[in-house]
């Protein structure tokens, strides 16, 4: 029997850092996550779309294909799995455990790679280039290394996919590149990629009450020393709230006279 083509999407639920309100920071300088709206990380949403495009192409060739979304986070992160189901993902689950707390990118990518391995078989993994709460862009490449598969970063267009290979366009610092690799492989998706398709009404009705499985650390058979804070070489030594040091400044009136004077002064000083 032919094996099913398995597409994995790694997604993260993130605090909406664009809408940071006044109560977002606790008095001790830590982040009050409860005060922030939690959203589907934007680059991961684009990764979901690329995964669904892959499925569309392969389905036309009568290939059995499935899109599975995995997220690691608190139990409420199942909200983004449900969102992915509404948009067309076939299934998904949350990897959640207190023992993952304080994971840096190394421990996170280890846990995610173990979760992917638990699926038994996968052909291609898509994830967003970076998450807006950290902007590190490290988890994608690190997961690829843990899986020992090639990584294609900053992909913004899917050009072709077959059961054996994938061809993508990727964004360079000053241009673009088209690359091709054998599968399995991991792809990180750039913010320039296609927006995700909307929810399907029939899927919303169908998947509204679908139970979303939750895996704990025990389910992914890890080396427990490589999880959470224990598995994270980076430690936070110090966190400072940003406090501005006041600098002597000159106040200039916004009326004609003020601006005229400023321009003349700066011109006279050869600054302009």
């Amino acid at each position: 029997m032919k094996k099913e083509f398995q597409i994995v999407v790694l997604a993260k639920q993130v605090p909406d850092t664009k809408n940071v309100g006044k109560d977002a920071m606790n008095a001790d300088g830590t982040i009050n996550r409860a005060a922030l709206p939690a959203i589907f990380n934007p680059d991961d949403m684009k990764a979901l779309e690329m995964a669904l495009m892959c499925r569309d192409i392969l389905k036309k060739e009568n290939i059995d294909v499935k899109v599975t979304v995995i997220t690691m986070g608190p139990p409420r992160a199942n909200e983004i799995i449900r969102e992915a189901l509404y948009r067309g993902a076939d299934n998904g689950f949350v990897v959640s455990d207190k023992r993952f707390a304080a994971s840096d990118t190394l421990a996170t990518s280890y846990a995610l790679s173990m979760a992917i391995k638990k699926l038994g078989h996968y052909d291609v993994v898509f994830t967003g280039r970076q998450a807006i709460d950290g902007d590190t862009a490290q988890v994608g490449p690190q997961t690829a290394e843990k899986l020992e598969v090639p990584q294609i970063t900053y992909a913004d267009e899917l050009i072709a996919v077959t059961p054996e290979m994938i061809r993508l366009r990727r964004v360079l610092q000053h241009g673009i590149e088209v690359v091709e690799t054998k599968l399995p492989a991991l792809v990180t998706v750039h913010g320039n990629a296609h927006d995700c398709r909307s929810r399907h009404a029939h899927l919303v009705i169908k998947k509204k009450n679908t139970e979303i499985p939750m895996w704990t650390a025990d389910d992914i058979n890890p080396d427990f020393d490589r999880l959470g804070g224990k598995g994270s070489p980076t430690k936070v030594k110090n966190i400072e709230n940003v406090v501005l040091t006041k600098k002597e400044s000159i106040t200039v009136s916004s009326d004609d006279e003020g601006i005229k004077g400023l321009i003349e002064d700066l011109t006279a000083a050869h600054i302009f």
Partner: protein
Amino acid sequence: MNNIIVYCEVKDDGKIADVSLELCSKARHLADRLNVNVDAAVIGNNLKGLENELFTHGVNTVFCLEDSRLSFYQTLPHFSVMTKLIEREKPYSVLFGATPVGRDLGPRVASYLRCGLTADCTALDIDENGNLMQIRPAFGGNIIATIICPDVRPQMATVREGVMKQEVFEKQKNTAVVKLNASEFLNEADFVVKIIERKLEEKKIDIKGAPIIVSGGYGMGSKENFKLLHELAALLGGEVGATRAAVDAGFAEPERQVGQTGVTVRPKVYIACGISGAVQHRSGMEQSALIISINTDPHAPINSIADYVITGDAADVVSKMIKYCKSNSKK
């Protein structure tokens, strides 16, 4: 042992990237405090002569791997070379530019070696226990985090372009070029990803070198109002910058974004128009020689780092500046 290795990015024109030279300069200062060497790793095709530029930027040993298959950067071969070199040399620290290449390669290397990697640092220092302090803005820039890796070596970091200064040093007494053997450091399997096509664009907008930057925030209100900034910038021989919010709103092109996720600039004059001054923006411009802030809010955070503060509507004030710049130049 215990040296600092800088991964040096080779651009398509065959030159070393500015960010790598900035890192070599910074590494020199750190290495002098630790009494160790700065090593550079250069991987590519046609690397002749590059060592001289590295030596003048403070490097002791240049590790060089040349191979005709390495004309363009690819993850896996560079990964193989860097991991093998690090395992052999056992450095104190490895630094990468926080460029698309450094951010592609660094994480994979750190993952394989199971060591810590801090992304997008804006400062590096050494703490009382000899750990590398890796300093970066975090959480949308509301906090500045200092990260250390007390138990694991090497300590790895990617560092933003433009935040460290490029410096020229007198050539070190002990310099060397060490050629690495491709057959020892590379495998055939490293070339599984094929480059089918590659198109480079001349970057049209580059605000990094502009002496004067007229920058607009979300407070400019519209793309229309941004035209005023372009007019003023043209009069002053400068460029237009923007905040992330203004870029997201479509007021300006992404290449103009100043700050943590954009470019870092240090012009002679920075005119901040309708910019409140979130730290992720300030970290990209606070080293400007002179800062003029125009904002309706007299308590906008940007005002505390400004040399001149103008409280008022930015579009209105910029129109006046255009008017008086024009009348001034007529004299």
